[in-house]
């Protein structure tokens, strides 16, 4: 293994799963020797810049590229018509859809007649350097005729609203109802009915590394594309069809990825334009997104407006929920519209809900297109549900945790089937978990019981402190499969190949641990190669907290199968019955004897050699490929308790304590789990308090740098207290559940619950995120005048 610190004690074989094994990824990254997209150096590499729309909605009357083309160092200025000879379509396919195809809501590779959001790519400049490419892009002259703009999804859905694109008849992309049970009679028979309007605002994923793509033209009409993507295989399939390329002429590689968080789980126009231009010009090309481009061209998410009505019995037990969810889709729908479906079906979360009816309306606006950002619709659902729980408690004068306790699914009801279907069409079955115990443990750790005393004392000193709680469940490990190939080399070192994508989550280490245990080897003897379509024929990539569950299960099964193969081969080679053999420390040993054969030797034997006999009854190669299949999800759960202090005069929120309990099933590496949870919490805190992607009334973005759009920094945070529970999942062979998003989902709801609680003397109701100082200040002021 490159870069492994040899001074560290070797991890004893067969003991790595469940331990905080130091990450194999780290040594090279810590030395600055990672290879991220922008680090790829190729001979004669030219750089690209995109001219992007400055109008939120306009007709393009004229595009004059002559001056830009004539500039020194500029090799080409390309518009859609220039690329068309290398494309099978000028419009992007519906991402991640196996049937491909375009809808009239997918974006264009480059827009040529109309633009529908600020940031939409129009033309592409190829030059010696990015500096020159940007200079030239600034000299492309575009004549626009402005068209009417839709900035608010609720206004956009009305019949007389202007359309966000002239090709549309309506801004409503889709509408449907999600529901079950008899909601009408639930409301008719309820002891109490309450209602609320909620808004959760969009933000961007903002991985520290932007998106990017490098295309290398190789002899024989071959093309190699590197992309900072979460889904190299999808990019491979899409490029194959968009460029009309032979499958053997294309290779897609994901290098080190500087964070994904959802926006890199999408196929973008630039990922088609750059390879197409490389083929057109016969040159190696690179484009790397700068931060301003992230703000105006990478996927955003979360803008949803919920109207929620809840019916409860006299004991605050849920009878029914009904309402409407308006989802802001932005200008295009690059993917099938899964997010609002996720939101609507996830709303009831860890609670028992007898009846439900949610009308979902998906509406286009003239803003950056929307797809998944960490949590993918679940944070909004958790926000809506947890706000509803708080509302019930507030209205009935009950403790907020008590209301939740009465409605949580008890452990004896597991597995619990929700009367809803997952996106795959399978029933939503919560596989395992003890939500009551989770909540009790989190409350205990956070000192929930004593809080009223502490709050009263603080109030007497003129300080406004509050505590908030939120629960969440997340369906993880989305299938239908992920690949895991385990191969023992002739030196005994093991390679794992997978379609999973590493983007910082530590998936390489976790898979290496699983493989190492399966083969009774030190973790360092395993190397994981992720995200290369030439090495792994099948794969889906990184999203929906799925990779450890799916790839992990495949690697586990593949390692087991390699182990079985090694035993079978050793039995023949050593002429000892299999029952008398064991696999240990990289060797098959004869029990009660010191005879042994190494995995390396077995691999060399199974490699075969001309003229040498092959062990009878064994197959060539010490390797196995598994594609563990699953349509069900493994449900992780979390309970977060936040404590804050609010300064009402300033609208300022200080987080005093944050306790997060997370149950993601069996943990392969608790250190990685804790890190994922902490990162997720902080993302959610950003959503709650800071991250505001602003647009003005004409849909011009007004936050296009980190000076205007605030991310959480180290000083805003308290010491994060993370409690890890471990309820194994029965639905996969390793018992794991996903963790990448579990920390984000309840965080905003917990913070808002705490802020509202701190401001209880003002009786404010907080129905939105982010709750900026200004918004908070206004709430407090208006409560004083009311």
């Amino acid at each position, binding site marked *: 293994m490159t*870069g492994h*610190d040899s001074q560290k004690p070797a991890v004893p074989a067969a003991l790595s799963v469940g331990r*905080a094994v*130091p*990450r194999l990824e*780290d*040594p090279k*990254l*810590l*030395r*600055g*020797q*990672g*290879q*991220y997209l*922008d*680090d790829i*150096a190729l001979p004669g590499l030219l750089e690209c810049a995109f001219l992007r729309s400055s109008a939120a909605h306009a007709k393009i009357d004229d595009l004059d590229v002559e001056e830009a083309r004539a500039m020194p160092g500029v090799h080409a200025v390309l518009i859609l018509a220039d690329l068309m000879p290398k494309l099978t379509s000028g419009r992007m396919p519906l991402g991640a859809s196996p049937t491909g195809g375009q809808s009239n809501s997918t974006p264009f590779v480059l827009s040529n007649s109309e633009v529908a959001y600020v940031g939409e790519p129009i033309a592409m400049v190829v030059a010696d350097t990015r*500096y020159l490419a940007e200079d030239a892009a600034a000299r492309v002259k575009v004549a626009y005729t402005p068209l009417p703009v839709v900035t608010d999804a609720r206004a956009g859905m009305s019949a007389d609203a202007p359309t966000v694109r002239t090709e549309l008849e309506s801004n409503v992309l889709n509408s449907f109802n999600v529901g079950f049970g008899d909601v009408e009679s639930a409301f008719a028979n309820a002891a109490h009915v309450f209602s609320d309007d909620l808004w959760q605002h969009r933000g961007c*994923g*903002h*991985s*520290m*590394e932007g998106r990017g793509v490098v295309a290398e033209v190789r002899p024989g009409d071959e093309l190699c594309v590197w992309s900072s993507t979460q889904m190299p295989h999808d990019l491979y399939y899409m490029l194959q069809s968009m460029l009309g390329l032979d499958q053997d002429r294309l290779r897609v590689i994901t290098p*080190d*990825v*500087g*964070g994904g*968080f959802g926006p890199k789980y999408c196929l973008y126009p630039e990922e088609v334009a750059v390879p197409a231009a490389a083929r057109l010009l016969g040159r190696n090309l690179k484009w790397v997104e*700068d*931060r301003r481009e992230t703000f105006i061209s990478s996927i955003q998410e979360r803008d949803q407006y919920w109207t929620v009505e809840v019916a409860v019995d006299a004991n605050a037990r849920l009878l029914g929920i009904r309402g409407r969810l308006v989802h802001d889709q932005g200008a295009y729908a690059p993917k099938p519209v899964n997010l609002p479906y996720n939101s609507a079906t996830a709303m009831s979360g860890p609670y028992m809900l007898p009846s439900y009816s949610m009308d979902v309306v998906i509406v286009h606006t003239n803003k950056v297109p929307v797809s998944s950002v960490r949590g993918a619709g679940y944070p909004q659902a958790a926000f809506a549900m947890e706000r509803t729980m708080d509302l019930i408690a507030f209205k009935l004068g009950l403790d907020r945790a008590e209301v939740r306790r009465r409605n949580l699914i008890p452990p004896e009801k597991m597995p619990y089937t929700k009367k809803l279907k997952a996106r795959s069409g399978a029933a939503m079955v919560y596989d395992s978990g003890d939500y009551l115990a989770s909540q009790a443990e989190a409350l205990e*750790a956070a000192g929930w019981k004593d809080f009223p005393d502490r709050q009263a004392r603080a109030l007497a000193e003129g300080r406004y402190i509050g505590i908030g709680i939120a629960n969440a469940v997340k369906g993880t490990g989305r299938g239908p499969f992920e690949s895991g190939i385990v191969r023992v080399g002739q030196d005994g070192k093991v390679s794992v190949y997978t379609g999973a994508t590493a*983007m*910082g*989550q*530590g998936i390489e280490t976790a898979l290496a641990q699983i493989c190492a245990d399966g083969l009774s080897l030190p973790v360092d003897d395993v190397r994981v190669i992720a995200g290369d379509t030439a090495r792994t024929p099948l794969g889906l990539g990184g999203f929906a907290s799925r990779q450890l569950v799916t790839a992990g299960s495949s690697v586990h099964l593949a390692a087991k199968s390699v182990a079985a193969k090694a035993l079978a081969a050793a039995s023949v080679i050593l002429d000892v019955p299999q029952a008398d053999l064991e696999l240990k420390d990289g060797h098959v040993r004869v029990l009660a004897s010191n005879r042994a054969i190494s995995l390396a030797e077995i691999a060399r034997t199974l490699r075969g050699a001309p003229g040498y006999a092959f062990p009878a009854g064994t197959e060539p190669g010490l390797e196995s490929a598994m594609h563990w299949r699953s349509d069900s999800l493994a449900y992780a759960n979390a309970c977060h308790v936040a404590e804050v202090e609010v300064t009402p005069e300033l609208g300022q929120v200080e987080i005093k304590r944050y306790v997060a309990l997370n149950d993601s099933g069996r943990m392969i590496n608790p*250190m*990685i789990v*804790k*890190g*994922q949870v*902490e*990162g997720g*919490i*902080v*993302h959610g805190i950003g959503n709650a308090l800071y991250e505001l992607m602003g647009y003005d009334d004409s849909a011009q973005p007004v936050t296009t*740098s*980190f*000076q205007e759009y605030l*991310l959480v*920094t*180290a*000083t805003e*945070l308290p*010491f*994060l*207290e*993370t*409690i*890890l529970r471990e309820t194994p999942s029965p639905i996969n062979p390793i018992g794991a559940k996903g963790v990448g998003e579990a920390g984000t989902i309840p965080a905003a709801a917990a913070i808002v619950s705490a802020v509202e609680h701190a401001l209880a003397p003002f009786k404010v109701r907080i129905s939105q995120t982010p709750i900026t100082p200004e918004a908070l200040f206004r709430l407090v002021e208006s409560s004083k005048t009311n």
Partner: protein
Amino acid sequence: MHEIEMLINGRSYSGLAEARMTLADFLRHSLGLTGTHLGCEHGVCGACTVLVDGASVRSCLMLAVQAKGAIVETVEGLAATDGKLSPLQQAFQDTHGLQCGYCTPGMLMTIVELLRENAQPSEAQIRDAISGNICRCTGYQSIVEAVLLATGGKSAGRMSE
């Protein structure tokens, strides 16, 4: 075009740069020292932090010509020549102070500067020092813990495991 020479990690480098080329681009693309990363190119994220004549700078905001003749330290210079990680780097690995590793070079250089001024920083001082470095992955906790581990400090927080 300007001929620029500088001492980087104890080695002399030279290259040609336009007056407008940033130090970050010069390091990364002209000299091939790609360990220094760009996260925002407008001076807020800190990913591009390097030390110039001993002081941290955002190499996306400094022009290469301004660093002419300077002594520059980058992430590539932190590990020993035999590849052994520095105690700070090792602490990052031990506490899981990095996930994607993209912000890490800037974090490390910021902390190197901090530790030269204050060998035993408190948790609050550490948070303050890295408050100009954005990490989207870790939530900072494990980075703070890395610095405490490397300096023998203790967290004021409640350890719950």
